């Protein structure tokens, strides 16, 4: 099953290159839909046993050094994989009319990207992880570079170099771990480190942690490593932005949760204060800068910086709530920011401008678009009953348990998110539409509705009935935390308050 989910996009990539341009988008859509449906089959077994890896395949790839094709899905990666498989057909649908040159390459790259990101989430071998990590880079580079806007080259190169600069350090760290443990297998390495069979000095642990951390932090992106993101988003085509924001950024946060924390718990604890500090700065900073962007995509991009600050904050709170919230927030951000980019793309297809000032009064000619945009906006600013609220609440709750002062500042980001999103909405949709604008602004068509609807449903679903999604995440996070907080250092660091925390909670 996982094999199919993983390799069908790759097969699709080659198939598309072989097929003529005319059928490529239909073929791509069909393939991605099949992949999505297949990926739904992952849910049952994984949720049944979320703490363990399901669908494990462990085949030798290279004998020496022992590199294995070792993949599997657990509660942490399950939804991220499904998010990827869901967003790919949506991205294809969104591009349906927009992409008019080098069509088959475009869809082929989208499928290759899907292959890469699913691989990242499914890899249980560090080397394999790195391979997929890099492989996912290439199609995105081309997506931005070929089908992007005016400054696409700068953006594409910047994107590639930033990520590359981070990932080489990760490679060094992976190799170092291999030399230490003789294995690339994540579970083996983890086991050896946990059991003390492989011993890292404090300095080595710190350096390794930082190597991993920086490569992930660039991808996240964490302030102040974020400047590639606005450029990449602004220049990328709509589908590129969707995949970038929804899936690729999650690779970074996923890496933090999957690798940084369990492998180097002491270092993670030691460095958590400034990392969380950066996360908080990022939350506020991203929001403030988003506030003053004249360009919609840039605005949404900076809002991503802000939102992902929450994720990082949650991760480095080392609390169950924080971690659960962080993972949930990854999904939420994927859904709602993906939708935002999609909607901005719809606007762009109609008006061919990303400047907010080119719009105004769109709600009159295109009320349906306005409504969807509004719902997405509300999701993005964390309105309860919509998805982001749950994630932000848990993150902040967890962070509050770790250090209340972080939360005081982070919560300012929540205020600011309302400011920039509503202001954007006001400037774009409210007011009177000029004649010219109204003329170019047909309401949503059926295809666009089909693309948008799943995300809208998810926003509400994930906001109201979290139990459909949360249990596997929670279960796996609990296991991670068990490893990370072995010394129980996280909660002990909050001496001010803690009388009731450890009591059994709500006895409803």
């Amino acid at each position, binding site marked *: 099953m996982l094999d199919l989910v993983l390799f069908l996009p790759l097969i699709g990539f080659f198939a598309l290159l072989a097929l003529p341009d005319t059928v490529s988008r239909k073929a791509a859509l069909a393939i991605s839909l099949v992949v999505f449906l297949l990926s739904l089959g992952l849910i049952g077994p994984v949720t049944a046993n979320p703490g363990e890896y399901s669908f494990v395949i462990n085949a030798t790839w*290279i004998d*020496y*050094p022992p590199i294995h094709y070792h993949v599997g899905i657990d509660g942490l990666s399950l939804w991220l994989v499904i998010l990827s498989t869901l967003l790919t057909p949506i991205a294809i649908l969104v591009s349906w009319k927009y992409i008019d040159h080098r069509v088959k390459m475009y869809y082929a790259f989208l499928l290759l990207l899907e292959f890469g990101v699913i691989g990242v989430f499914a890899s249980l071998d560090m080397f394999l992880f790195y391979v997929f990590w*890099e*492989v996912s880079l290439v199609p995105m580079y081309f997506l931005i570079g070929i089908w992007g806007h005016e400054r696409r080259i700068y953006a594409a190169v910047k994107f590639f170099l930033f990520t*590359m600069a981070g990932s080489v*350090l990760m*490679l060094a760290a992976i190799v170092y771990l291999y030399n230490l443990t003789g294995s690339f297998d994540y579970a083996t390495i983890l086991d050896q480190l946990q059991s003390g069979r492989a011993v890292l000095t404090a300095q080595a642990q710190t350096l390794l942690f930082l190597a991993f951390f920086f490569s992930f932090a660039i991808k996240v992106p964490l302030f102040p490593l974020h400047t590639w993101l606005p450029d990449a988003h602004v220049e990328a085509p709509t589908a590129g932005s969707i995949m970038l924001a929804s899936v690729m950024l999650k690779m970074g946060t996923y890496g933090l949760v999957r690798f940084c924390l369990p492998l180097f718990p002491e270092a993670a604890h030691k460095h958590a204060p400034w990392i969380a500090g950066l996360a908080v700065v990022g939350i506020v900073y991203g929001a403030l800068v988003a506030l003053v962007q004249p360009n919609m995509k840039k605005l949404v991009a900076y809002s991503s910086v802000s939102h992902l600050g929450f994720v990082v904050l949650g991760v480095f709170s080392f609390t169950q709530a924080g971690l659960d919230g962080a993972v949930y927030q990854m999904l939420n951000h994927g859904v709602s920011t993906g939708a935002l980019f999609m909607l901005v793309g719809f606007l762009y297809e109609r008006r061919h401008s990303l400047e907010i000032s080119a719009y105004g009064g769109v709600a009159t000619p295109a009320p349906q678009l306005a409504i969807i945009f509004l719902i997405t906006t509300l999701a993005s600013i964390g309105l309860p009953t919509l998805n982001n609220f749950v994630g932000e609440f848990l993150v902040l709750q967890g962070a509050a348990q770790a250090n209340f002062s972080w939360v005081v500042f982070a919560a300012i980001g929540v205020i600011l998110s309302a400011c920039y999103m509503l202001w954007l909405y006001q400037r774009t949709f409210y007011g009177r539409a000029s004649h010219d604008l109204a003329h170019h602004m047909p309401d949503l068509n059926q295809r666009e509705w089909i693309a948008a609807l799943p995300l809208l449903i998810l926003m509400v679903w994930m906001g109201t009935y979290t139990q459909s999604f949360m249990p596997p995440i929670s279960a796996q996070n609990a296991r991670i935390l068990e490893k990370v907080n072995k010394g129980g250092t996280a909660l002990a660091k909050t001496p001010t308050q803690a009388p009731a925390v450890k009591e059994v909670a709500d006895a409803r």
Partner: protein
Amino acid sequence: MPVSLPTSAEYFRFLPEIILTIAGVLIMFLEAVLDEDRKSIFGPFSLVALALSMGAAIAASSDPGTAFSNMLIIDGFGSFFRVLVLVVGILAVFSSMEYLARERANGGEYYALILFSIVGQCIMVTANELIMVFIGLEVSSIASYVLAGYLREDKRNNESALKYFLLGSFATAFLLYGVSWIYGVTGSTNLQLIRQSLEGAGAPAVAVTGAAAALMFVGLGFKISAAPFQVWAPDVYQGAPAPVSAFLSVGPKAAAFAILARVFMTAFGPISARWEPVFWACALATMIIGNFAAIQQTNIKRMLAYSSIAHAGYVLVAITANSGIGSAAVMFYMAAYAVTNIGAFAVVAHVARKGEKYVEIEDFAGLGQRMPGLAAMLTIFLLSLIGVPLTGGFFGKFYIFKAALDSHLNWLTVLGLLNSAVAAYYYLRILVVMYFKEPGESTADLQPAGATLSIAVYVCAIGTLVLGIMPGWVLDLANKAALK
């Protein structure tokens, strides 16, 4: 003095070189005899010779041992490189045929020179004696000098050849001076004997041997274009015909790396504490000079030349590691680099067209649209040069830095990896131009590549991918053949 004649086994171990030499001589003979219009057989003929030679080399690898009074040693390491340079030769011939026809220079001499040059490289990689190192080096080099200036009407070719020749001979003089000192101190030019002699040597002897090793490093470092002896490489690669540049940047280089690794790891093993720091610094300087200077290049051949300097830096990292893994990494990397770089140069040679008119990076604008297949192949090569996974370049780099970390060269690893990130920038520029820019007049009348060039390009691409996806095949060989 009892005279022992070489045994048949020894001849068998030397058979590849013999085959090539005979083929070279035959070509020279036929060149004089054949009509003009039949001279196109030289290419295929030399391919057959190379293939036969490769068969012989593979066969010989099953019967390792020394030959001709310890002059040669046919061990795994040597065999690996011998096969590698033969593969390089085959690919070089494939990528040259069309070029030569286009430049109306499809003479037999070219192939003969390639074959002789490969003879020299084969001798180098299996040399067990400094004298064989020297002679092999000279055979390879003198043929290379001529090849670099092969199109003698072309001023760039002239200058390239002259620079290569003068500086090459200059560096060789240093090498020889070093050899003479080594001979003087250790009383031998046999690698094993040198090692033995050094193992119990006193301080002055070690110091002088060190200085001699340094002089040898000047000569060999020159051939591999290690900093600060890299200066010639950009000029020569830029000026030489593109297929020759391709050949020069991998063939002699692979051989020189092989002999560098062998001499320093075996013969100078006992004084490794002395030369490792030098290699460390040279590796770093080479990477930095190669990568950073490449950023500024506009000529693609020159850029690839700087890139080849940078890659020499990576390989030097592996030699600095001075371990079995290190030598395996050298082997694997050179293999991956060979297919990648020949492929890249082959594409460049095709796009450059007659007289190498279009060798600026900007001339590749829109190649992705005009020639999607060729562009895709060049993309694979460039990604491999960057070191993106699933290409040979990545795995090679991975293995090199693994070796380096194994030998606790932590900082060199980090700096090297950062260098490879910098390198991404200039390779990406070609991708940018190729895919993100609209085609201009430079690619307007570009014809599809012919059969032989296509074979070269596609084989290189497949090789690059196979080395990236299934590195195990070559890596196993390399690990078994490791020097230590």
